[in-house]
């Protein structure tokens, strides 16, 4: 059975001067998939993701997101994706409700659907009591969960998560991943970068980037089998050992 392809990259490359940040990467992501994008710091994950989101123009290669070309149709792409950045990106001096309304507003959601979404979202996050609290008063884990929920509120086809769980405790990370599963079940494709290897196990498929190149791409089970490893950490270490770049 052919699955619908929502992200398609072929020979996608980004150069900054002489430095090749992303070197001819090719992959497909299917609808409803949780696609893990792994790599050490500086491997080129964020650059690759930015090209797919229309934040950065590729130097060469082809890519389409939700069927739209990353060179010419970035406006259409923006309508169809959600994005949560590496660093926390809600307004700390706005309340939970105001943040939700603002982001819903810039995606052009109608007042009625914002209202409906807001309630179900606050219930899901168990944050109904905090709806009028300023975001800066919330614990980091809550903020991250809120940021994720806001990123998928307008029901995008794909959501890009750039190291969404950085600095969050293991329990909250687990809860965060439950939110990701719930989103995937609703048919939202999840494209997530991480360097927590336990999180890699939660993905349907993972790609491992080393020095701007995709070294491996498969399901976690197959990867472990091919590299004769008991965990994803071992797989990763085997691949990343040869890396020459060390940081962003």
């Amino acid at each position, binding site marked *: 059975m052919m699955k619908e392809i929502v992200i398609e990259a072929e020979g996608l490359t980004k150069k900054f001067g002489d430095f090749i940040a992303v070197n001819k990467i090719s992959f497909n992501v299917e609808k409803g998939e949780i696609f893990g994008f792994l790599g050490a710091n500086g491997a080129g994950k964020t650059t690759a993701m930015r090209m797919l989101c229309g934040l950065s123009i590729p130097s060469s290669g082809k890519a389409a997101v939700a069927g739209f070309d990353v060179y010419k149709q970035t406006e259409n792409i923006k309508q169809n994706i959600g994005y949560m950045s590496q660093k926390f990106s809600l307004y700390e001096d706005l309340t939970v409700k105001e943040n939700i309304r603002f982001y819903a507003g*810039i995606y052009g959601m109608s007042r009625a659907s914002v209202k409906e979404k807001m309630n179900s979202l606050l219930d899901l996050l168990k944050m109904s009591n905090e709806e009028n609290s300023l975001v800066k008063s919330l614990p980091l884990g809550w903020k991250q969960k809120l940021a994720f929920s806001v990123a998928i509120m307008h029901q995008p086809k794909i959501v890009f998560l750039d190291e969404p769980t950085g600095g969050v405790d293991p329990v909250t990370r687990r809860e965060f991943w439950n939110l990701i599963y719930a989103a995937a079940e609703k048919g939202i494709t999840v494209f997530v970068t991480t360097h927590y290897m336990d999180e890699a196990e939660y993905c349907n498929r993972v790609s491992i980037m080393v020095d701007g190149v995709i070294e491996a791409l498969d399901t976690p089970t197959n990867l472990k089998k091919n590299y004769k490893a008991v965990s994803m950490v071992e797989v990763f270490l085997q691949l990343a050992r040869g890396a020459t770049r060390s940081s962003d």
Partner: protein
Amino acid sequence: MKQFIIFVKKEFYHIFRDRKSLLIIFLMPIVQIILFGFALTNEIKNSNIAVLDNSKDEATLKIIQRLDASRYFEVNTYLHAQADIENIFKSGKVRMVVVFPPNFYQSLLHSNKAQIQLLADASDPNTATTITQYATNIINDYQQELNGQTNIPYQIQPQLRMLYNPQLKGTYNFVPGVMTMILVLIAAMMTSVAIVREKEINTMEVILVSPLKPLLFIVSKAIPYIFLSLVNLITILIVSVTILDVPVKGNLFLLMAESLLFIITSVSLGLMISNFTKTQQEAQMFSLMSLLLPTLLLGGFMFPIESMPWPLQAISNIVPSKWFYLIVKDVMIKGLGFSQVWKESLVLVTMSLVLLFISFKKFKTRLA
């Protein structure tokens, strides 16, 4: 349109939740205008002076009386010997000493000539020049009165009239100046900081990924600060009319319209600055350095541009504040109409358009 409203609303949340900045924004104009209006004038009032009167006659008494009665001088010491002069200057108690020679009135009557010595502390040359000028005027007044009594043929009596500011009040100069300074500072600095903050707290990235149009982003960032600046403008006008007695001579609506134009120029400057700064502090510093200093030094209200060397005069032409200052002086103080300020207005319009065009072109919709 809905996106626009929701964005502007968000911007106002930021403004009103930041109580400290809000207080500064609204108090700064009032404090500054009162400071400049009352404390920091370039008029020199109530200078303490000493008198060494070796004559003590009718004329010297009258002159001393007049000096004392004027708002410029306070005769606080009477000296008795030439030697005291040096000491009193050293003590710093007086700025000027007036010395009358013996038989002052006598020689005035008999030889038609008398001399008064004015000694001023010229360690501050500007003050010294100004106060000797004041004193000379007062003495001349007295002399003219005496002349009126006797008949001297062929006399030229200059009649001075100070137009637009008959009392030579410093506030007439400072109100337009402070207005210029506050509008450019608040509008440009706040706008640049507001945009750069989005970069700093990473919300910019999320906004760039969203379907929000860059133009809409820029406009909705600018609108709240244009509004705040208008509030400031009204405060300044109310304070200057009620407390400082500087009336709006010209058309109030023309003045408001010209100010709105200048606010837009300043906001465009702020947009420009936000394009090449990364942190809020950087934006703030850059605004201060690139706006406050040129406005103060080259805006024309602290130092007359005509007396600067030509390279500085040339540079002053690209300082928007200079043009707005001219407009405010013409409209507010002289009461002139649009036909007198259209050239300056055109300069501001052109500057705004160029700045807006560049900032919009340079606005990065992508991160790399």
